[in-house]
């Protein structure tokens, strides 16, 4: 077998069977182990204190999430795993995480949840991830697990990177008890195609798409400042990962009448676009080509489902759709489909099994509950306010990841 690069606990090229998690067969950590909480808290402090990392919003969000208070809150919410009298919860064993390359902090959420359940972890990081902040993060974790206080964790975490090599994927799969497969349809299909031991537990994250919904009555009640704040939140939800994060909206539903819809379109475009102009770092020339190409393809392929095109500039594309035909996927980078929704029931005709997040503005609790109920057996895994679309939660894509990464033993 070819060698692989182990990045954590220390940087070395070695044979896959020599990575750190295979070097010690005991499992001293229990579920929700105090040592683990302390380790994650220390990592949180390290991140939030680091002069470079503390300027990266995605990494800072991770830092806050790892704090002791938040982890304890999560544990509290999952107390049933320890307090139920009819079963006892144990670690599942070794977990192999195949991490996505776009959302660069995802690997740590995945790792933290699995550690909390007392599991050992192999994380396969895309060799494309050459982002310096993430490399710094690996370095910080390495430092931590090499310290006396947390050396135990060196046997719990192996972060590795290697090319697209099937036998290594298969080997690591066969050494594991569970796989957490991020990275969309193609990765899920690839890993499911391998002949591995049948009992392996897979937690799969295939491609998803997400929507946003603005209720226009409350929107038009906002002050200018509030509208700008809303646009800023929407920008964070969508442009942060070039609108290609699974939770970033591709379609915007506008609940209101026709006039409100037209007014919103013009006003919100202008507010959002000026924010994008000064904050979005991607090269506008390539984005202009990307979006214009996609638009022309959309028009040729899905002409009947496109109504009006609203593109006063290349920062934000608004494409009005009707319900005639399937529209294609957004190309990302700020290319939104718009639909004027007359009622919440109508929303449901757009919902299918692939829909993950509905981020909303202006809905009340009754309306949110109505959507939950209407979406039974159809789709939508989470409904969150605009601005929170990218917030990570241990409940993800319908899984409670903590509950998935353990075994329950009868008493």
């Amino acid at each position, binding site marked *: 077998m070819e060698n692989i690069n182990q990045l954590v606990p220390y940087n070395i090229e070695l044979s896959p069977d020599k990575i750190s998690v295979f070097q010690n067969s005991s499992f001293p950590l229990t579920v929700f182990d105090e040592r683990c909480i302390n380790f994650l808290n220390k990592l949180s402090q390290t991140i939030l204190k680091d002069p470079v990392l503390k300027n990266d919003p995605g990494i800072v969000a991770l830092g806050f999430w790892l704090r002791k208070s938040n982890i304890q809150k999560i544990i509290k919410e999952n107390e049933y795993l320890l307090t139920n009298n009819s079963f006892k919860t144990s670690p599942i064993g070794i977990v192999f995480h195949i991490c996505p390359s776009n959302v660069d902090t995802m690997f740590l959420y995945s790792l933290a949840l699995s550690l909390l359940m007392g599991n050992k972890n192999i994380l396969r990081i895309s060799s494309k991830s050459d982002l310096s902040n993430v490399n710094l993060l690996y370095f910080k974790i390495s430092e931590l697990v090499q310290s006396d206080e947390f050396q135990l964790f060196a046997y719990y975490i192996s972060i590795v990177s290697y090319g697209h090599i099937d036998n290594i994927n298969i080997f690591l799969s066969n050494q594991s008890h569970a796989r957490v497969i*991020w990275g969309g349809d193609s990765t899920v299909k690839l890993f499911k195609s391998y002949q591995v031991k049948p009992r392996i537990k897979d937690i799969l994250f295939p491609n998803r798409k997400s929507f946003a919904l603005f209720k226009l009555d409350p929107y038009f009640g906002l002050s200018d400042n509030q509208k700008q704040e809303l646009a800023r939140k929407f920008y964070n939800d969508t442009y942060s990962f070039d609108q290609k994060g699974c939770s970033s909206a591709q379609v915007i539903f506008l609940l209101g009448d026709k006039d409100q819809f037209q007014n919103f379109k013009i006003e919100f475009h202008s507010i959002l676009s000026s924010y994008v102009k000064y904050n979005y770092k991607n090269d506008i020339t390539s984005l202009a*080509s990307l979006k214009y190409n996609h638009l*022309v393809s959309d028009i040729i392929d899905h002409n009947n489902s496109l109504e009006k*095109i609203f593109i006063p500039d290349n920062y934000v594309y608004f494409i009005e759709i009707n319900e005639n035909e399937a529209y294609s996927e957004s190309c990302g980078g700020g290319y939104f489909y718009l639909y004027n929704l007359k009622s919440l029931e109508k929303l449901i005709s757009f919902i299918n099994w692939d829909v993950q997040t509905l981020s909303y503005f202006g809905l009340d609790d009754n309306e949110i509950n109505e959507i939950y109920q209407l979406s039974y057996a159809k789709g939508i895994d989470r409904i969150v306010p605009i601005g929170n679309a990218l917030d990570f939660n241990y409940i993800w894509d319908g899984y409670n990841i903590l509950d998935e990464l353990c075994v329950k033993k009868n008493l």
Partner: protein
Amino acid sequence: MEIAEYFDIEQYSLKKEDKQMYMIEFLNHLHKHHLMNSEEYRKVSQKIFNNIAEIKNIADLPFLPINAFKNFTLKSIPEEAVYKIITSSGTTGSTPSRIFLDTEMAQMQTKALSKIVTHVIGKERLPMIIVDSQSVLKDRSTFSARGAGILGLSIFGKNHFYLLDKDFNVDFEGLNEFIAKNNGKKILIFGFTFMVWQYLYLQNFNIDLSQSILIHSGGWKKLQDIAVDNTIFKNSLQKKFGLSKVYNFYGMAEQVGSVFIENSEGCLHCPNYSDIIIRNPKDFSVCKQGEEGLIQVISILPKSYPGHSILTEDIGICLGEDNAQNGWKGKYFKILGRAKKAEIRGCSDTFNK
């Protein structure tokens, strides 16, 4: 005016107002023709360009992105009228563009090229050196950009000599023979820019090319990597071979009639048939002279397919109009590079290569 008459107007002789007047008339004809005959062009005109019926300014013309010729079969003639399909090489691994010509279009393509090139090299057919290997022409069924360039230009020469053998080694014997035969005569040399640098300039031989004319095309990307720009390129050839008549040449398979040859300012010059508009990437508004943007190319010739107005992914800058030192009228511009492939990464690309 009929297009045949327009062909007889001397190249680079039309001033802005006249050129615009002629072009707008031709372009309106084409616009209507393609609206009628190309469903794709019609859809794009309707949805993005407000269903514009008639243009008053060239900038009003709908434009297709150059990628559309890769993704779609775009033609404005019935299948049975297709006489020739040109495929562009594109970048390695990408889908090539496919351009559909009928016989009329194919003739026009040759004629337009001839009018432009003979303006620079004269009407007489010259002994010709092609800085390439004949093997790039082998597969005639799919023209590569290099093959198409060679074939297109070789009609302006005679006694063609390919400098490279099939293994891309310089054929010194053939070269000596060719030089002996054409000693002191005006010679036409054609090749791709990086081939000329690699296989003519960097080789260990010297010949007198002071009477010769070099036309080269294909872009600067490979030479940029080794820090060779147009000035260095020209100075080097002048110094080594006495070669002073060097013309860069830019064209694209996707647009018949848009053949841009270097003028006295070292810029690419629009011929009578075509025009360029530089568009601001922020909103596709028209850039002022001297402002950088995406290059839109416009030609009055493409009739068999809707390629009369194309937004390229090349970044350029317009540097003047009607005021080149050598007296050529029309706009002239420089190409500064190409829009990068947008770095858009999805959740779904862990294992995409």
